[in-house]
């Protein structure tokens, strides 16, 4: 059956180039980078080169600012817990209501452990209330944590400006940015920002799952999360995952080379899909309303129909997407991001996210635009809200 993969914010296909780059390190080049002989030297050099590629990818000033981790969640935990451990006298954190669960739940946990957390709102377009954020900064603020791009709606938050303004208010406050959904989708230039730490995950830009990185600006003190050997300059113990580090660097290099394609062709496909759905399907409403968005993501709500059912029917046609509906997650709670944005219940449960990648084709978009209207029509027919739907479809 045909497969149309429009869930690239969940994970991506591994780039063939990334796979090819890692294979030697899964077979012949198995040396431990810390050992002394020539075999190990090859692994060591591979990591060194990968670190340079990653620094270039993130726009870091120095490859030493890159720490390899196992995933985005580890990057976030290392950054946040590491910085709080160093600044133990400060007990206030500022973050947003729309962070990814891996960050959100970290702050909920810290709240239980005695930290006070300010949760910043978004408006109905999904844009952040920056005034509220800056007013919340106090001398006791240890950390400001804002994601760069939202995973559900694709909204980009101005983290560069936020970091600058926060440092004006309190130069001691550290700024962590969850950059997982931004890396590979928009250009990054961290050396020219005041951001102290920036976390990414390889599998969101065509590297395999199980590898991530954390940028830590030179001069930023960080207590390690994983204690053990001297790897990663003492900031993350554990033998380096050489093959995956090499694969992530290869994927990062490709993503950088293809950035123009992402910003033009992928964006045009996303726009075509979005406009097509909104014009063909009468009960469709746009949730991704911000002017600042990553080029690959759209989030659309279908009024009076339920999201899981849409996804199940899409799956039967070979189309993969995801939903902010309560029923698709184990928690049975509808999306906290869309709720923070004030999306009404009429379309909240029927919200679908489509996220493209550079492997998405014109054909994929056309196929989706052909299948989706019939699916929605079928589900509309069984809805108990016939009166309301008649109003919309008249």
């Amino acid at each position, binding site marked *: 059956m045909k497969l149309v993969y429009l869930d690239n914010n969940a994970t991506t296909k591994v780039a063939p180039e990334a796979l090819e780059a890692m294979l030697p390190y899964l077979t012949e080049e198995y040396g431990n980078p810390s050992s002394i002989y020539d075999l190990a030297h090859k692994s060591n050099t591979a990591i060194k080169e990968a670190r340079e590629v990653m620094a270039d990818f993130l726009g870091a000033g120095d490859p030493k600012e890159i720490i390899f981790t196992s995933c985005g969640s580890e990057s976030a935990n290392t950054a946040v817990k590491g910085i709080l451990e160093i600044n133990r006298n400060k007990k206030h954190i500022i973050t947003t209501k729309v962070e990814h669960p891996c960050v959100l739940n970290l702050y909920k946990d810290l709240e239980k452990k005695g930290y006070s957390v300010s949760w910043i709102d978004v408006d109905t377009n999904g844009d952040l209330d920056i005034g509220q954020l800056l007013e919340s900064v106090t001398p006791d603020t240890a950390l400001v944590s804002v994601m760069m791009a939202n995973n559900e709606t694709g909204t980009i938050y101005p983290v560069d400006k936020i970091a600058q303004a926060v440092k004006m208010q309190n130069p001691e406050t550290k700024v962590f940015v969850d950059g997982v959904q931004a890396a590979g989708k928009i250009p990054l230039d961290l050396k020219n920002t005041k951001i102290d730490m920036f976390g990414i995950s390889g599998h969101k830009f065509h590297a395999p799952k199980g590898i991530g990185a954390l940028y830590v600006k030179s001069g930023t003190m960080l207590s390690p999360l994983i204690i053990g050997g001297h790897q990663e300059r003492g900031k993350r113990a554990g033998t380096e995952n050489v093959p995956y580090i090499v694969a992530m660097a290869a994927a990062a290099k490709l993503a950088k080379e293809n950035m123009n394609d992402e910003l033009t062709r992928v964006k045009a496909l996303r726009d075509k899909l979005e406009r097509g759905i909104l014009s063909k399907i009468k009960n469709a409403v746009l949730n991704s309303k911000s002017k600042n968005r990553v080029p690959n993501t759209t989030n659309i709500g279908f009024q009076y129909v339920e999201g899981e059912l849409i996804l199940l029917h899409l799956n039967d046609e070979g189309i993969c997407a995801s939903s902010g509906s*309560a029923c698709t997650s184990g928690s049975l709670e509808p999306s906290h991001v869309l709720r923070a944005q004030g999306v009404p219940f*009429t379309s909240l449960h029927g919200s679908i996210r489509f996220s493209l990648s550079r492997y998405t084709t014109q054909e994929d978009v056309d196929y989706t635009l052909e299948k989706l209207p019939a699916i929605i029509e079928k589900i509309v027919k069984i809805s108990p809200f016939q009166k309301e739907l008649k109003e919309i479809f008249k």
Partner: protein
Amino acid sequence: MWEYSDKVREHYKNPKNVGFIENADAIGEAGALACGDKLKIYLKINDKGIIEDAKFQTFGCGSAVASSSILTEMIIGKNIDEVRKITNKDIADALDGLPPEKMHCSVMGHEALEDAFKNYFGDEGNKTQSEDKKIICNCFNVSKEDIIKAIVEKGAKTLDEIKEINYAGGGCARCVPNIKMLLDKYAKKDEKLNPVQFILKINKVLETNVAGELGKDSGGIELVNVEGKDVYVKLTGTCSSCKNATMTLKNFVEAQLREHVDPEINIIEVK
């Protein structure tokens, strides 16, 4: 993705008996838009009490549609008395099972049916239940009795702990205020120490559990101050110059205080 049986897949793909019945003898409803689930059921009942026709309309997930669809198949041609014996487990079984998190979808079918009969008979048809057997959380079919058991017997103190035990309150959350009332009534309150008792307890743990251990290495510990949950201590004797002092404080002293006094205590060393 949930693991749905082939039966569930078949029924959400091609649901049976979709629609409404004009001049229905009974109409039942369950769920609400805000919860992400709503079901309406229409029944045609003849004078012998046989359900001649049943139709449904559902706003909901795959299993909600599947359980509505199979329910209509289960009741058409049956006598009301038989139909009233159908439980939500029967509905789930007819679908070759539902994922545990999705059981509330079958409950909804059952609720709508009850609502339809209430509408048909007037209130007398409503089964009377003892107060304790009353269902509080309709999503997961959890009774008042079960929630009280979770609090009293299993020691749940918060809504989250109750959710972990029997899922109650984890669905549409309409029952959360009721669960909170039960928590207020039945949960054991933590004995709150006043500041003086708190400091005395810390000191006692330091004297009995910690000082002796440190003394083995000719070291000692002094309590300097307590601010909130931050406990300021000074290491004395050989401990004061020990390179591993920070490790000792974190791994041993703080762990002891967290275990015996308060799990949120932070140890801070004063030089």
